[in-house]
């Protein structure tokens, strides 16, 4: 649709660019929005930002020591740019201390986009059968973590 509009405007003499990924991409990146629905709470507003993270090459034993024995939060595996690579359930940190984190992570955890409405979360949790979900931008960068009863 935007391509037809762009071509038409170009025909009319304008210098035209086309933001192909559109507002879905803009909102998914957590950028501002305007409009009557703009104020509705989104998962980015309620996501816990202080979450444990680790690099894939770290040893399970080192991470366990760093987090302490009382940790019950899932561990988020990220790269140097905070792009999410996986998720490790807290019980998986009981694995061989010499194993790299990447061996115990789920490489395809469920993620929500920051602009998902809070009211829509329960249906996704139910559909996926999960207790928590990562919030990431459309580029995969970690925003935070939401729990089933965060709302």
């Amino acid at each position, binding site marked *: 649709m935007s391509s037809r509009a762009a071509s038409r405007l*170009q025909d009319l003499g304008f210098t035209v*660019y086309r933001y192909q990924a559109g507002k879905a991409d803009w909102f998914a990146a957590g950028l501002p929005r305007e409009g009557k629905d703009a104020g509705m709470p989104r998962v980015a507003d309620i996501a816990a930002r202080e979450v444990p993270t680790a690099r894939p090459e770290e040893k399970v034993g080192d991470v366990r020591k760093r987090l302490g024995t009382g940790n019950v939060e899932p561990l988020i595996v990220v790269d140097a740019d905070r792009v999410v690579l996986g998720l490790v359930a807290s019980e998986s940190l009981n694995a061989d201390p010499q194993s790299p984190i990447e061996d115990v992570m789920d490489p395809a955890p469920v993620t929500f986009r920051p602009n998902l409405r809070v009211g829509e979360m329960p249906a996704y949790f139910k559909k996926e059968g999960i207790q928590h979900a990562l919030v990431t931008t459309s580029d995969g960068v970690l925003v935070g973590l939401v729990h089933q009863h965060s709302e």
Partner: protein
Amino acid sequence: MPTVIDRRDVQQLVQQGAQLVEVLGAKEYEAEHIPGAINIPLKTLNRATAKRLDSRHPVITYCHDNQ
């Protein structure tokens, strides 16, 4: 053919004076749009409605996603 850009380009061009145009219908625009965008639905886009735009500055069109 108009150049395809990403959101970083959008931010930069808008800062430089480019005009954002959402070409979806009014209802969808009113619900949510990118700050500063004006609405010219594709169905109403013609020489007359394009007069809302300043031809001295670039225009960026967008809709919902890769449509």
